């Protein structure tokens, strides 16, 4: 027990240690392989270079993973984010492509608002299924994951909608203060989420709901509302990520947009040290995880390996990170099972009986 406790303390003390180490190792390996890897230069007042590219391309993943972190923190999972990316991107592109002036700011903002609104409604649908009807999250969101792809194709009528809109393109490729706009949006979203969860009690409440929704409810937290909320937030994040993905290529493809992004996002969250069982989350870990995944993808491209084969490396990294974290998992489970399990269970029952 003493030994496991010591080991537990050592691991939790460095919760971000292993993911950070993996990221640094990958960057070092890249630099050794290609010495110019870390070089960043200024062109036309913008920063250019591989590290900047990694940041820019990881922005959608960071956004999706942020929403996913909150969902997973409540013990749920949101498989529908990829489909939501496709739907929101498709709606925005469809609206812009139909507009007379694709470059007008008002058109783009209307399109964004429209698509975001639809995504929020779909997020509410997920939230209602999980929080009100009480369907298992993995299945509740599986419905939208399957049907959502169909809906996205319905919106685009099976075609790839191409648009030619400067302002919309800027979401994916634009620059602001020498940095890519996409990463600034992702950063702003991260700061917003962090402020709401870590500067208020919201984060604590989310974690407590993830730890035990029923106990939280009895303690006076509206668990249902919190669970509902995280799915809506996740949908909003996915929608913005969908804008970025479609803006990057100036076209909306109902089939390919956001394909597998839910899996990448879940990976990013898990690599970042958030437990899939819920009850604890780390936003910085998630961002680190997303960066690891994007660095890995870029590395594989840079080494001239086919993108599909990069899945092999992804599998290896996932298993490695999970195995590294596994002893901590085991220790935590062992402690939970042997020690405090009777503890929290007993007072909980008392609480139930007092008002009755």
């Amino acid at each position, binding site marked *: 027990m003493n030994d496991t406790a010591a080991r537990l303390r050592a691991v939790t003390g460095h919760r971000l240690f292993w993911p950070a180490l993996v990221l640094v190792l990958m960057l070092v390996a890249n630099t050794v392989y290609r010495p110019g890897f870390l070089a960043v230069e200024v062109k036309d007042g913008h920063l250019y270079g591989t590290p900047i590219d990694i940041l820019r391309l990881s922005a959608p993943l960071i956004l999706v993973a942020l929403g996913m972190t909150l969902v997973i923190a409540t013990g749920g999972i949101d498989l529908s984010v990829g489909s939501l990316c496709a739907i929101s991107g498709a709606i925005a592109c469809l609206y812009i492509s139909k507009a007379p002036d694709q470059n007008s700011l008002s058109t783009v903002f209307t399109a964004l608002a429209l698509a975001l609104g639809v995504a929020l409604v779909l997020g509410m649908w997920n939230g209602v299924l999980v929080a009100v009807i009480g369907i298992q999250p993995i*299945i509740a969101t599986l419905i939208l994951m399957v049907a959502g792809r*169909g809906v996205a194709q319905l919106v685009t009528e099976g075609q790839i909608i191409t648009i030619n809109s400067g302002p919309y393109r800027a979401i994916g490729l634009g620059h602001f203060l020498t940095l890519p706009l996409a990463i600034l949006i992702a950063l702003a979203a991260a700061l917003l989420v962090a402020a709401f969860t870590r500067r208020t009690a919201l984060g604590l409440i989310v974690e407590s709901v993830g730890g035990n929704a029923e106990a939280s409810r009895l303690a006076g937290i509206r668990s249902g509302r919190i669970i509902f909320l995280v799915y809506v937030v996740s949908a909003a994040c996915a929608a913005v990520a969908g804008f970025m993905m479609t803006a990057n290529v100036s076209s909306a493809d109902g089939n390919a947009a956001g394909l597998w992004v839910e899996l990448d996002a879940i990976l990013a969250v898990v690599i970042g040290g958030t437990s899939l069982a819920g009850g604890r989350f780390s936003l910085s870990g998630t961002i680190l995880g997303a960066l690891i995944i994007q660095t890995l993808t870029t590395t594989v491209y840079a080494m001239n390996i*086919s993108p599909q084969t990069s899945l*092999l490396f992804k*599998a290896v990294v996932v298993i490695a990170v*999970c195995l590294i974290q*596994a002893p901590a*998992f*085991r220790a935590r489970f062992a402690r939970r099972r042997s020690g405090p399990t009777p503890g929290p269970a007993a007072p909980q029952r008392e609480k139930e009986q007092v008002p009755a």
Partner: protein
Amino acid sequence: MSSTSLTSGRAWRPTLPRRHVPVLATLVLLLVMYGIGVSQYRAFSNVQVVFNVFIDNGFLLVVAVGMTFVILTGGIDLSVGSVVAMTAMVSAAMLRDGLPAGLVLVVALLIGPTLGFLMGCAIHFFEIQPFIVTLAGMFFARGMCTFISGGSIPITDGFWTAMSQERIGNPAGNFVSISVLIAFAVVLVAAYVLAYTRFGRNVYAIGGNPQSALLMGLPVGRTRIAVYTVSGLCSAIGGILLSFYTLSGAPLIAVGMELDVIAAVVIGGTVLTGGSGYVFGTVLGVLVLGVIQTLITFDGTLNSWWTKIVIGGLLFAFILLQRLIGIRFK
């Protein structure tokens, strides 16, 4: 119907156990859909339409049977689609290199279970969530596919083409392929194993409550590893059947198949938390998916994406049904 059964549930048809309700609902849905098809399209009543559903979905059926085992224990296996593709790829590549068909079959059938066994071990010994482990397995298998070859590999082997073109039928011209018979054999074996063997009962016990199963002295670890191995084996058989069907191995084949498989299992009445469900239900679930596709093909004006929307809607309806039954009888 549900309001009357609330009050007179016990007297009203006492022979209908509530755990059969989802399966029966699927059966009714299947019959209704078939009825709609027959009433709308004259050619739909041809027996060959039913046979074609089996021919087109034989591999899906086999994979879904394996998934049923995993879901019954409360786990999930996301790697099935990729393992199917990998098996087809490996067999195609080995046949291209001129290896004998028998050896190729053995090797191809060994890869899936081996991967399943390793994933089961990772899930059991390191206590990593099945979701993440099988996700890694999915990435691994899909990566292996492109590692073997970036493009499609045709199969020209005599045994494979014979299996692909052999038609078993009656003089009226209706036929099934050998794949269908293999799929049926897998279904029967799986149904027997789940219902009448110690292993099968252990699967249900673990799905019901792993803690209790452990306290009862059941081999939880061994069973848990075994179900992922079974799922791997079924995926491998499914991959072979798919290569019979398409006579090629392509790196991007069966992408997203795991969703169809999970949908089929859920529509077939297996509860995702584990412990309740039947192989027969899974067969019905696969048939429902197959009939939807056939209906959409017959209609001609509907586009393929309606399949996804309808499957999503059905998933919702069936989960809601399970939920209602659960609330009613808890």
